[in-house]
């Protein structure tokens, strides 16, 4: 496997996905602003005196008002769009600065910290050694190592900074993988740490959270419309419709955002696979680990309820979700074995 080429490819795709995110954010902000201004214009046109026009004529007139160099209208449009942009942006920023301590994540899964002192079993000791070996190959400080008491086969890395990063594997993984396979799996997790995938995923989740802020905006408008005693029925109706439309825009945006999130997650999985090959220089190890899963029909399912939240960070997909966070095993094997 020409891992550097695969890494470059994955990184390029990640950049494309980021650009798509920003475009989505800009577009949804604009769409909201536009909804507002057209709504206001329509409200005007539904006053007495314009009954001769049909709805569609009123609609196109509303648009014409905005876009025929009417400064005030354009200013209003810009104002609403900017507001929508800022609301989503703020919600995203909160996510960007969210701290993520790797140890807390591992403990949420009832993970046990394995160190030189308490690694009595040969298997645990081997796993601990493997973590050190791969960290050396990756030129990072050795992450802490946790063992998760689950029988499903899985592994994950957590922690935003290299200093508080951890690698965890399930008991199932420890039992079913041999040394070479485990090396591939752990190298893959260390690849996630090196490529800052944990930080990246927090940022992307923040983006999607920003889109959900639109929902809250819609709700706010809806409730303030209903409870405002001084507004007349017509205005209230438009507020209500505006809220519904914004909610729909919000839903679509969140939906698109989640698709992009899954796409990004898949790219980073390919990147981590390529990094694993770089560190172990032994592609067969990782391939065999995939084969163990495929052929043995062993489960990757984890019982712990926290697992859904961290599905993206796992080694193997844990459910037949519509928005798959992991590429199919066959595709992953194919990429590793291609050219090698």
């Amino acid at each position, binding site marked *: 496997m020409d891992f550097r080429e695969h890494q470059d490819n994955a990184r390029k795709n990640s950049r494309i996905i980021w650009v798509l995110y920003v475009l989505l954010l800009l577009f949804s902000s604009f769409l909201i602003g536009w909804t507002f201004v057209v709504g206001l214009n329509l409200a005007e046109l539904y006053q007495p005196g314009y009954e001769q026009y049909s709805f569609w004529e009123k609609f196109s007139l509303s648009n014409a008002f905005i876009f025929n160099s009417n400064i005030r209208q354009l200013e209003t449009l810009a104002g609403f769009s900017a507001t929508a942009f800022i609301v989503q942006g703020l919600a995203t920023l909160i996510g960007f600065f969210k701290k993520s301590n790797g140890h807390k994540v591992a403990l949420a899964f009832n993970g046990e910290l394995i160190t030189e002192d308490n690694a009595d079993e*040969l298997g645990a000791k081997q796993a601990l*050694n493997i973590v050190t070996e791969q960290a*050396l190959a990756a*030129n990072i400080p050795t992450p802490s190592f946790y063992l998760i008491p689950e029988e499903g086969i899985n592994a994950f890395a957590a922690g935003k900074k290299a200093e508080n990063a951890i690698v965890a594997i399930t008991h199932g993984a420890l039992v079913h993988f041999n040394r070479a396979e485990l090396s591939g799996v752990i190298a893959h997790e260390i690849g996630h740490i090196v490529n800052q995938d944990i930080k990246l995923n927090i940022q992307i989740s923040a983006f999607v959270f920003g889109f959900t802020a639109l929902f809250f905006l819609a709700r706010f408008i809806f409730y303030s419309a209903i409870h405002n005693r001084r507004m007349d029925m017509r205005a209230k109706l438009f507020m209500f419709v505006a809220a519904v439309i914004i909610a729909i825009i919000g839903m679509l945006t969140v939906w698109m955002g989640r698709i992009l999130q899954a796409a990004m997650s898949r790219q980073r999985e390919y990147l981590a696979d390529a990094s694993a090959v770089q560190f172990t220089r032994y592609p067969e190890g990782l391939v065999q680990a995939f084969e163990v899963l495929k052929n043995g029909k062993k489960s990757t399912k984890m019982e712990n309820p926290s697992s859904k939240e961290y599905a993206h960070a796992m080694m193997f997909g844990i459910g037949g979700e519509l928005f798959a966070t992991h590429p199919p095993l066959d595709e992953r094997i194919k990429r590793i074995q291609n050219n090698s």
Partner: protein
Amino acid sequence: MDFILQNWLTILIFAIVVIWAIGIYNKLVSYKTQYQNGFEQISVQLKRRLDLIGNLVDAAKKYMEHEKETLMAVTQARSGLLNATQAAEKNPGDVNAMATLATSQVTLDSAMGGFNLKMEDYPDLKASENMQQLSEEITTTENRIAAARQGYNDLVQKFNEYKKSFPTVMLAGMFGFGDNAKNLEFSESIEQLNEAPKNLFG
């Protein structure tokens, strides 16, 4: 004052170029320090391995009293490697030091190979719990050395690639980064190197 105002564009361009050059210099320094540190990592692992082999020989001595030659070969190869490592550390860029380091490692590995063959005649030693734990220790040490070497080579590659790329290549010589970093190479048979650790315990 007039001078600045009249030539503000030239001065601005000059300032940008200076800042950019500083950035390049700092990156070169950073990458070079990284690969030098990477080499230190290898030494750490090599020393660990030397110590471990010491333990191995001690454990084996009690069982293999009649195999003085084999044990002697291992001990001597071990000291040879110790010296070569120290020499290479002092001059990481020296091609001869690197070559001697490589040869010494091959010597130790073939001595270990001989030791391993003898071990087959001592099933008690092989099965002892001590030996199993030591076996894992030695496996991980070999792997750590390989990992450290590889990590080092990757850092060397990162430095060389950056140094040779445009536009850094124009400034690198001027900044004192004329020499390329050297990858670790082993002129002797690579197969021998790879095989010895695997055969260590059958």
